[in-house]
């Protein structure tokens, strides 16, 4: 029976310090800046530090621990080779201002990666700077502004998005100064064309969409949507977080999207690192190229890689050229997969998802609103469990933890009640999918109390998240 490792691990400042000789007084620092207080960081021995973080690591669940079907997050296995290569001195230890002749390898990788992503998405140009998906969205919104402003179309200050949109979409749009208009989905869980038609106007700057959407449903009317949006003079933005569903099967560029971001830390198997570093490259159609951030990476006839300037560029969105090691890992991943591998990845991601979906629905314990055919993820509802047994999606999630299984995303998208959003990805085996379904089904029959008391095989029992927010304690100092 599964049990997580449990250590009663002290905080770093609760260890016995190894006192070291105090440093020498130093001369020359301006008086007003001389440090008076000691630095409140404990002085420990390497042994203590190593064990501390070793213990902490064992109390953390990652993809290498097992299935991690967080919907919308594409938590797939991260090939070890990518990690190994990214740590090579010749990559990791290069300075962003080094003479360009000494970093031709880095530039080649970025140059080629841009082109690979173009081919994959059907876009014309890419910018690798953004550090995450949301960062890419912000860049996309700024490009949208630049585009309309360049055309002197100053009234377009609205961004439309469906109610299934990920939280970062509206947040990025407002951050870039746009007004938001959220439109409800139709009974199939997709964009309601009539409502969209009515909402589009000469104030519309952009329509943001992910396809398949966050229910895992492919927006089959996408060509129609594209036509409508463009007719209204607006741009169509693609949130590429769901790209894992369609690699080598269809391309956002061909669907009519003008701007998109990808999440390399999702689709391209670069690890998520417990919250980053990530990478959210932005692709655009040719009409938006001129606005892309600088520097642009070019290649001379002689095959020398160079940085190009761009006079109409919006400037920069992140220091230097993006999270290079993440780019490098994605590049390696694409090389290892090739067309065949990427296509099969999407195919099996979709197969695994539909397989799980069917098995779960066959059990009749959970319901699934909206259309049947799903892409790489699907959303089921625990509403019936809640009505009948006062058991919530959260309870189900916590109970999964007792089996060493990471729960799905819960309570998203918002339009599904008591939602469990499941994205198995292609790197899970049938055996593990079966086990997951079995467990979900078994859980549904357990005593409500068992679920409400879950988890218990974890380092801590159910965590009180409310207190953490009501009475925030964020540092050692705030503890006392």
């Amino acid at each position: 029976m599964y049990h997580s490792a449990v250590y009663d691990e002290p905080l770093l400042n609760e260890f016995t310090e190894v006192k070291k000789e105090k440093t020498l007084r130093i001369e020359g620092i301006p008086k007003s800046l001389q440090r008076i207080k000691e630095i409140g960081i404990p002085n420990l021995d390497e042994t203590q530090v190593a064990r501390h973080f070793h213990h902490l690591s064992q109390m953390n669940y990652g993809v290498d621990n097992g299935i991690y079907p967080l919907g919308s997050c594409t938590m797939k296995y991260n090939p070890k080779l990518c990690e190994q290569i990214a740590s090579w001195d010749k990559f990791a230890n290069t300075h962003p201002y080094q003479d360009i002749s000494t970093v031709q390898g880095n530039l080649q990788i970025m140059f080629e990666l841009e082109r690979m992503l173009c081919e994959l998405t059907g876009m014309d140009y890419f910018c690798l700077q953004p550090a995450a998906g949301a960062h890419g969205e912000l860049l996309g919104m700024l490009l949208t502004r630049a585009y309309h402003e360049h055309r002197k179309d100053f009234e377009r200050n609205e961004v439309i998005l469906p109610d299934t949109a990920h939280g970062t979409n509206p947040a990025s749009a407002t951050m870039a100064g746009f007004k938001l208009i959220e439109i409800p989905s139709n009974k199939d869980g997709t964009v309601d064309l009539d409502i969209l038609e009515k909402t589009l106007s000469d104030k519309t700057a952009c329509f943001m969409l992910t396809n398949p959407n966050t229910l895992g449903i492919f927006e089959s009317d996408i060509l129609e949507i594209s036509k409508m949006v463009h007719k209204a003079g607006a741009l169509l933005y693609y949130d590429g977080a769901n790209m894992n569903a369609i690699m080598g099967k269809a391309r956002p560029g061909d669907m009519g999207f003008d701007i998109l971001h990808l999440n390399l830390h999702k689709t391209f198997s670069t690890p998520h690192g417990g919250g980053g570093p990530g990478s959210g490259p932005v692709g655009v159609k040719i009409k938006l190229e001129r606005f892309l951030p600088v520097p642009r990476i070019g290649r001379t006839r002689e095959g020398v890689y160079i940085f190009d300037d761009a006079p109409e560029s919006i400037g920069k969105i992140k220091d230097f050229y993006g999270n290079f090691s993440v780019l490098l890992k994605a590049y390696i991943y694409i090389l290892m997969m090739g067309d065949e591998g990427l296509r099969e990845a999407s195919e099996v991601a979709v197969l695994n998802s539909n397989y799980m979906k069917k098995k779960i629905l066959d059990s009749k314990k959970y319901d699934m609103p909206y259309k049947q055919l799903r892409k790489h993820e699907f959303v089921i509802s625990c509403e019936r469990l809640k009505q009948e047994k006062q058991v919530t999606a959260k309870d189900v999630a916590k109970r999964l933890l007792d089996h060493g299984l990471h729960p799905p995303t819960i309570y998203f998208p918002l339009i599904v009640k008591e939602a469990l959003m499941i994205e198995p990805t292609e790197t899970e085996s049938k055996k593990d999918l079966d086990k997951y379904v079995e467990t979900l089904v078994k859980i549904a029959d357990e005593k409500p109390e068992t679920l409400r008391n879950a988890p218990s095989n974890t380092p801590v029992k159910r965590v009180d998240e409310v207190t953490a927010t009501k009475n925030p304690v964020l540092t050692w100092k705030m503890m006392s």
Partner: protein
Amino acid sequence: MKFIPNSSLKQEMLKELGLKQIDDLFIDIPKEIRIDNLESPIPSKGLSQQETERLLREIANKNKSCNDLLCFLGGGVKPHYIPAIVKSIVSRAEFYTAYTPYQPEASQGFLQAMFEYQSMIAELTGMDVANASLYDGATALGEAALMCARITKKNSFIIPKNISHSKKSILNNYVKGPGVKVKEVDYDKKTGKIDIKKLRTVVDDNTMGVYIENPNFFGVFEDDVNEINDVVKDANALFVVGVDPISLGITKPPGDYNADVVIGEGRCLGNPMDYGGSSLGIFACKKEYLRQIPGRVVGLTKDKDGKRAFCMALQTREQHIRRGRATSNICTNEGLNALAAAVFLSWLGGIGLENLSRINFEKGQKLAEEIESINGFEKLFSGVHFNEFVVKCPIDPVKINQKLLKRNIQGGLVLGEQFPHLRNCMLFGVTELHSDEDIKRLVSALKEVT
């Protein structure tokens, strides 16, 4: 090896779905846009791991690392020593293959480490609270400006003229939404410090915040911090300070001179230069602005049995809950880099950091002296510097660098591009990694090439 364990079970699984072929799963995609394959530059068949490694080795060999090349670049990024333990911890799969800790019970390890990161950043900066990271130092400046706007509801933000152009550009892009005006204050041409007189003239009722860097982009310490703080506070604005965290080992934490927000680039705390990636946006502030902080924060709490536990706190500020009204759109941050910083700082300890900081300062003074002793080279500013400084060169610095490169030395950062009036100047940087012999090698090379 394509990382697809069900490769051979496809037919079996399709059968269970009552389907014949994989493409039956894709019938919802309109025919017109379905494609059969991807083309060049994506290889049609993937490379084996062995082939991949060989190819990448060839590409890597087109680079020179800062171990191949003696590097004296300033400009924010510098090579720093990374103790082996950092790599050995951040390469633990439980950490690097995890997602954002949405399920605290399965993520206590990362959460506690982030709590400790926040605590150490708070200690270092003298602030009450810190978040669990932003993308980088430059976007942290953008977020700081946006926070000032939210708090003060005013619309002008003041920065020194001498910050990197890239940071300026990023800031401008970040504040485009609310339409904040960014105003620049020139620096004193003699000292290289911010010109306080000019600052006074720029600050007004609309000023929501004033940003300074300490040390600044020229490597010079801004020691008039108390005066600056007075100017800022008189205008009811917020005082935002950008730091090099290594310098805080020997200098006053900005909290001690009443800064409201402290930001900085934390890559130097245990992360590789990574060609400008592996960045870490530090963000710390006073407790009173807690609910306006951008990004994730980890808080202390209890589990059902009263045992100490950690979880993400104040999520109601964030996009996944507050959506369009979030304090920021940030979701994925730089978690693993923050973890590296936590390991780095706890390995070093407070005294270790003080030592490291002192060594950087001393190397900075030493290199400056040595270069000044060469005919024709001159330290441009009189202000005390940390481990970077601007040097006026006797000949075109671009030429100098080209010649140094032939000697396998990467010289300082040529400033002409970012600051046209400093066309004949270079920004040299030095750290604990540069030995006395390294410095000698640079100095004699500089003599040879001028």
